């Protein structure tokens, strides 16, 4: 007891001058668990900046929007939080996020031109920049090279067009062995929109222009693959993670999903798995891919804007290690030295160039809901793809205008 008191006294004496710097507390909400991105980064930051204390709180991904809105209403909002990228516009449009552009203009670390167009669009609302991406992800086509060889296909030439994808799936499907040609997710959730929108964008459409010939062709192809049992009917209810589980188990020869699958896949999949860019409608067509992952944002009513931005700067400045340490793709133009899974990284890095944001729109949940409804009612045969998309367009036009 006495020893501790003396020690504490001495420490205070020695550390005295350092305390001249003001103590700062930052509240940070994250979807991570201890040991993941925000926890690791916050610990490093606190070690380097003893005057800053960061209080972390884990919020479930699906609860983040609800909890954040409630906390803002009751005045308990954190200073900094993670938000999934399509939700930034929702909060920014209501003036709940701090515009970072004046800080970025002064910053030596953040240069807007370095941020890839997709992630940049996701944090931009009207004239402001309301967040910094912590990383990114996107989707591509994983395939089982062993099954390619067994079916007489060239594992070095994965399908590059929609037609080729369909034919390859047909060749690889083997009902006797319980193998589907392809797996993806058409779930009635944000994941369904996430997987479907790139197909629409490749044909020139987008979320606000969904009733196009290209979108209809994409939806028809999805439907055909499920109707002909090239993909499991459970595609309608499986998440991307679950769909990829069937690929890892050898029950699907190809799967469309993102880089977050790699750690599990390299453990579970005892075959030669590879990754290719998403196939395009026809040779030479425009490429598109989904943009996932979220952003670090500062709440508008923070009482520590400078300290909060300093931490965001620190997070952004470590973009070159997010792939190796946390499994995200960099959202800005940085050089990743000695990446893990180099072949997969090369494909995803290229795919990032085509990653397009969902929205941005403050009404994104309703837009996404309309797209999910269209996908599901077409795939279950309740509506033709054309009718389903036309109905979605009506809803979306109402929301957007």
């Amino acid at each position, binding site marked *: 007891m006495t020893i501790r008191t003396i020690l504490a006294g001495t420490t205070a004496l020695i550390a005295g001058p350092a305390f001249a710097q003001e103590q700062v507390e930052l509240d940070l909400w994250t979807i991570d668990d201890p040991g993941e991105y925000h926890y690791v980064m916050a610990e490093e930051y606190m070690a380097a900046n003893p005057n800053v204390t960061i209080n972390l709180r884990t919020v479930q991904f699906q609860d983040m929007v609800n909890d954040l809105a409630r906390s803002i209403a009751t005045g308990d909002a954190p200073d900094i939080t993670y938000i999934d990228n399509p939700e930034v516009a929702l909060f920014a449009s209501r003036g709940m996020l701090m515009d970072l552009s004046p800080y970025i203009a002064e910053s030596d670390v953040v240069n807007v031109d370095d941020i890839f167009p997709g992630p940049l669009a996701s944090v931009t609302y009207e004239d402001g920049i309301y967040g910094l991406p912590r990383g990114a992800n996107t989707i591509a086509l994983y395939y089982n090279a062993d099954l390619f060889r067994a079916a007489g296909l060239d594992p070095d030439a994965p399908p590059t067009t929609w037609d080729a994808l369909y034919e390859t799936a047909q060749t690889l499907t083997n009902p006797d062995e319980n193998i589907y040609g392809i797996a993806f997710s058409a*779930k009635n959730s944000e994941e369904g929109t996430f997987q479907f929108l790139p197909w629409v964008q490749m044909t020139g459409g987008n979320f606000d222009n969904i009733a196009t010939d290209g979108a209809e062709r994409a939806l028809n192809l999805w439907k055909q693959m499920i109707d002909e049992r090239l993909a*499991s009917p*459970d595609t309608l*209810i499986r998440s991307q993670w679950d769909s990829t589980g069937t690929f890892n188990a050898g*029950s699907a020869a190809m799967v469309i999903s993102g880089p977050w699958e790699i750690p599990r896949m390299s453990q579970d999949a005892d075959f030669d798995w590879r990754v290719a860019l998403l196939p395009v409608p026809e040779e030479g067509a425009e490429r598109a891919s989904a943009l996932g992952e979220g952003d670090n944002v500062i709440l508008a009513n923070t009482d520590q804007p400078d300290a909060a931005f300093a931490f965001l700067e620190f997070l952004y400045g470590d973009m070159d290690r997010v792939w190796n340490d946390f499994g995200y793709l960099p959202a800005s133009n940085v050089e990743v030295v000695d990446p893990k899974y180099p072949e997969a990284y090369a494909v995803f890095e290229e795919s990032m160039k085509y990653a397009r944001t969902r929205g941005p729109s403050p009404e994104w*949940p309703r837009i996404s*809901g309309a797209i999910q*409804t269209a996908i599901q009612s077409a795939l279950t045969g309740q509506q033709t793809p054309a009718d389903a998309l036309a109905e979605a367009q009506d809803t979306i036009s109402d929301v957007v205008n």
Partner: protein
Amino acid sequence: MPATSSSFRDGRGFDRMLVWITLTFLIVFSAFPLAYNILMSFQSVDLFTLASFDRPFVGLDNYKEVLTNSATDIIVKNTIVFVLLSVAAQLVIGFGLALFFQQRFPGATWLRGLFLAGWILPGLVVGAVWSWILAGDFGVLNWVLQTLGLTDDKIFWLSDPTNSLYSVIIANVWIGVPFNMILLSVGLSAIPDDVYEAAELDGAGRVWRFLTITLPLMRAQLGAVISLGIIFTLQQFDLFAALTQGGPSNGSNVMQYWSWELSFQDYRIGQGSAVSVLMIIVVIGVAAIYVRSTRHEHAA
């Protein structure tokens, strides 16, 4: 002061206190949320105005939107099918089991207790278990059906919109049967044996005894079990969340799940509230039946 303490001692003050504790609890945790819910159903509410009372009133717009929605027909129909089939099957199987365990055989009470295990499991756990059983490609049920040669093709219980509602009903019946059985068992053991013995001496057969003694004497219990069954079934949310999320394409969506979707996924909280108000009206009707059917018990 002496008056208060004596009234406390002789019980009247104490009685009042107990009543007020209960009343306060009900007002804070039942009446207030109910009234607040009704209020929100007439307002335009989104996530950001949830905590303030100052919101634009929109009259009956929320109800109009909800009732004219293209999904309304199928959701209302699903709700009715879900409630009727679940309650009917729970009652028939539960009553059958209650009668079965009423026969005195070794281990009857013990086995009856075991049945409750299903009922105390959280809905999400039950949902997870059933989603493995009902899975299309690797489900246990499909394996059994195919091994027994009952079906050639896999049945996609959860992802085929013609099956998905019935899959949730199967799981819900499984959850509800033990509760029905226990409640009806209590009623059955309250019927004195000599009534049956007298009837048997008079030459009444098993079926006749069931129809003329068991059923009439069980009327109150049956009424209670049916009304509680309807209320529990209208509350059933976890199974939908765990099994089908109301899908595919609203194929298994019911009003309670839809209300949640509107409020917490689309953030149209006013409309979500309108749906739950419509459900409250139904539940009040059912609760009235429940109160009527149990009133005799208190009189007795």
